[in-house]
């Protein structure tokens, strides 16, 4: 609970203390654009040219800072967790036994995220799984109708059946569609009910009705029509409610959100922000936002490498140790990103660890007292931030040898948003084993190999320079000062690092720890963080039209030391979050 309070208080501080109205002072240095008006007459902060040039790999565009375009508004289907959570909340207090949950097809991440609309192509297996699951939902609801507290349900006799059905439409169906049904929807559902009731009994008919409701696009997709016309169409309060609930809870709106939508509270930025304060306080937000962290950082794939180690080289390293390291990484992200004072900077610089007795040696600490994983302070001279968590270091390594290349590539791609170009097609990328009797360290061998070929050098001068900052950690993530080389001798490792051709991190660093400090201070990295969350929150790619929003949210994130709450605050205030583009016919 401490963590949730911390996140809430941080959000309140940023939101209420830093001007949620969006008002700000005049243009900043460089004066690229003055303050403008958003869709609700919100005065937008100015954007400077510098804000658009944080990342040399892709400068942002902001042609009209006073009235930025919205970007795309894709049709998004519920993800697998969203689907299961929505069924859970829709039928509560009834319950769907876990054994009856349909097994939906594995989701394919697009640009790293499973909720990206472009990765949501429906399949035969999806449709058939949903159909199977819907039969069970229908059976559970029709059998437990009396527990749903719907007036007139279940009916005491045939004469009350229609009234029960009408009340059911106004409650259950409305919650399933996440808005009141329009006339046509009500008419079609009524016709289906009547048609089935003519053949089957009431319970059987209601089973089929529920079965049908949870297979409609209004349930399976987040359908957003908006209300109005023009180039920016304002989302209805109900549509904003769904955006908020699925972003923070991975589920449907609750009664308070529905009420806020009905009362028009969500039609204003301040109303939205008030709900966000409430949503982030709820424990359900940990799961949804934690999922963002895992997908952003590609943790699932990294973890799959972390457990695959050569036990001949690392005796004692087994699946238990690997599992403890992975669990420790999850707790680290949870605390440093979402916890008190949490956010980007803490994520990148904290020296805490969550350590089991069995994995303690890898973390460089004594076995902590108590069972399970314990929160401990790690040696600040040895470890700093996410990139030095053992599970990350082990995941970005081969089975028996560490890999500065993997570590550098990951940092460039996920932390800096300046991904290294892919290797040439069909290049044999096998890392050669050291020559027998060689006395060269991995770093020395890597330099030799890449210096020798101009084609390699052009990219690896960036990749390796960053990856070398982590030479102080072996392939299981254990800190070290020496490395065993092929001739059997021990040589001192060189952890100096170089960053080149970035927006604001270039330099020579005496150690990886120094490099991490520079990365944590970087505005390019802050923008990278914002872009990932922006993509996750909107379930789509970042496009040119998003430049103004990205720049503004990054400005705010930088001003707030990279905290997560500041970024959320910036995002929910944008027109992109509360408006949609008109449909193209």
């Amino acid at each position, binding site marked *: 609970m401490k963590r949730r309070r911390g996140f809430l208080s941080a959000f309140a501080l940023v939101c209420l203390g830093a001007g949620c109205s969006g008002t700000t002072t005049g243009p900043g240095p460089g004066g690229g654009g003055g303050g403008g008006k958003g869709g609700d007459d919100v005065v937008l902060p100015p954007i400077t040219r510098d804000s658009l040039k944080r990342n040399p790999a892709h400068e942002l565009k902001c042609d009209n800072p006073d009235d930025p375009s919205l970007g795309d508004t894709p049709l998004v289907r519920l993800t697998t967790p969203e689907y299961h959570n929505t069924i859970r909340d829709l039928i509560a207090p009834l319950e769907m036994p876990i054994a009856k949950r349909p097994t939906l097809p594995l989701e394919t991440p697009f640009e790293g995220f499973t909720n990206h609309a472009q990765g949501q192509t429906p399949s035969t*297996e999806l449709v058939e799984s949903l159909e199977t699951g819907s039969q069970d939902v229908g059976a559970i609801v029709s059998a437990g109708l009396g527990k749903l507290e719907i007036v007139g349900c279940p009916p005491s006799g045939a004469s009350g059946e229609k009234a029960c059905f009408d009340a059911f439409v106004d409650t259950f169906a409305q919650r399933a569609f996440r808005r009141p049904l329009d006339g046509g929807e009500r008419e079609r559902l009524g016709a289906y009910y009547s048609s089935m009731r003519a053949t089957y009994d009431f319970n059987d008919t209601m089973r089929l009705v529920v079965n049908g409701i949870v297979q409609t696009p209004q349930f399976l997709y987040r359908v957003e029509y908006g209300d109005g016309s023009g180039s920016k169409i304002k989302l209805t309060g109900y549509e904003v409610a769904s955006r908020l609930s699925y972003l923070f809870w991975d589920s449907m709106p609750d009664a308070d959100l529905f009420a806020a939508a009905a009362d028009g509270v969500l039609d204003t930025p301040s109303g939205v922000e008030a709900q966000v304060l409430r949503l982030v306080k709820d424990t359900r937000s940990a799961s949804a936002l934690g999922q963002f962290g895992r997908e952003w950082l590609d943790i699932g794939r990294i973890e799959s490498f972390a457990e695959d180690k050569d036990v001949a080289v690392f005796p004692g390293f087994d699946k238990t140790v690997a599992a403890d390291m992975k669990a420790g990484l999850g707790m680290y992200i949870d605390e440093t990103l979402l916890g008190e004072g949490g956010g980007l900077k803490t994520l990148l610089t904290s020296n805490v660890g969550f350590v089991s007795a069995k994995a303690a040696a890898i973390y460089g600490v004594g076995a902590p007292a108590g069972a399970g994983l314990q929160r401990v302070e790690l040696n600040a001279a040895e470890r700093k931030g996410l990139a030095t968590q053992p599970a990350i270091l082990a995941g970005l390594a081969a089975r028996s040898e560490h890999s500065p290349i993997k570590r550098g590539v990951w940092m460039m791609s996920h932390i800096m948003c300046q991904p290294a170009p892919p290797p040439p097609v*069909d290049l044999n990328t096998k*890392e050669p084993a050291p020559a027998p009797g060689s006395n060269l360290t991995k770093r020395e061998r890597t330099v030799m190999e890449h210096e020798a070929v101009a084609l390699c050098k052009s990219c690896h001068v960036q990749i390796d320079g960053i990856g070398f900052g982590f030479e102080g950690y072996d392939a299981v993530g254990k800190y070290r000062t020496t490395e065993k080389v092929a001739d059997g001798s021990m040589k001192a490792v060189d952890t100096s690092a170089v960053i080149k051709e970035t927006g604001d991190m270039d330099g020579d660093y005496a150690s990886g720890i120094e490099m991490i400090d520079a990365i944590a201070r970087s505005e390019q990295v802050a923008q990278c963080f914002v872009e990932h969350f922006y993509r996750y929150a909107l379930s789509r790619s970042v496009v040119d039209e998003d430049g103004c929003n990205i720049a503004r949210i990054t400005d705010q994130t930088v001003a707030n030391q990279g905290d997560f709450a500041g970024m959320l605050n910036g995002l929910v205030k944008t027109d992109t979050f509360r408006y949609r583009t008109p449909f193209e016919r």
Partner: protein
Amino acid sequence: MSNTNANRRRLLQSLGLTGAAYFLPTLRNTPIARAQTGIPKRLVIFYTHHGVLPWQWATGSTGTTFELGPSLAPLAAHKMDLQLLSGVDQKALDVSRRDGCGHATGESGSLTAQTQVNQAKARGNGPSIDYHVSEGFKRLNGGKSPTLLDSVRSVMADRMHNLSLWGQPYSSPTGNLPVEYNPQTTFTRMFANGVPTGTKTTVDPIPFNKRRSVLDYANGEFKSVANRMGKYESERLTQHSDLIRDLEAKLAGMSVQMTNGGGVTAQCARPNGIAATSGSSGWWDATSKSVPLLMQAAIACDLTRVFCIQCQEPAPSAFGYTPGAVGTTDLHDLVHKLDVGMKEDNDKSRLDIAKVYYRKHAEVFADLIQKLKDIKEADGNSALYHTAFLWAGEIAQPGHSYNNNKWIVAGRAGGYLKTGYLHAWQGDNVVWTADKPAAPSNGDVLATLANAVGVPTTTFGLPSAFKGEVAAMKA
């Protein structure tokens, strides 16, 4: 706003996914039904030698956008029925790799995911996947094989250049399993009891009709919402709606009648022209024609649900080679005189022959796929849809590498497996790159196939090399 849509179009164009074409791969890839119809699932294995020429195989990163290379060109018509697995590691062989003949070692481990017993016997320390699955089918059927033959292992090979040279990949827990060189012997085993017939029964249509009515209502909502949205949203909803309509059609068929008592299909018939023997000068022509026909008949008549085909080496004449030519003694020598790293810079006369050799495998595989497609099941799908059809081999490429194998799975095992997909995995000891997930072991892949055909498998092969079912292979 036109700018926004232009951006989206540009994005789709950059991915080669413009307009309706964006949805086509899945539409082409969506059969009208899946299992749960009583239609049996089968495991078919096509086994070849000398790996592949990696740069001639396929290109693309993990996903649905990939291109078949020249070696796989004969499979173009079946591209959307394939799942390409690039980077499969034979991790068990890392544990106890033996010196000597790499082919024999690979054969011992490829389908067993186990270490090698010894060089002489070239056998894995455990059962191969075909045995595991056929035994699983027995267990699921009360201890008795559900079909006349629990499995068939047929070989396309010259007796003078047969398996005794290298060993073979099929084994029980205690020893190698017998294989059959003579197609007519297999034919006799299959049809000793005559041509089987299936029986049909009518089922209660009411539950199916109810489900159809629900889908009909839901589909009406899809159409209504699609009509209110823009063309891109409408395309997505229509795609979903089409799949619902397909499911309705499937339910309609099931409510009329369904096959009962096995998977005997309308195409079940005794095949004609099965060769009497192999080992003659025309052995390649005989076996390459007869074995596919036997496989087709075995599946159509539900005589076995595990069929293995080993293409030891096509006859030299089949790929334009004369032993002793181009400075080589035989095919084995020719292949190993290629340097994979040199790609097209290899000796052209040798490389040209090798290219035809590798392409020949794809021609046979394509023929086998087509024969499975030609069998129509009671649910309207082909037998291929209900089959997991693995193309594997003993080594990855001519250099005797056991890791980074390029395997192919055709068919969907009743909807369990995805198709139209390339996995560009990172094989062992290869630099990790952002677009390459970790490679599974061959044991992981084989367990996935066993589960796909309905044999519950929580581990397979050497335990320390097993990580689990490959979720990414599943639909």
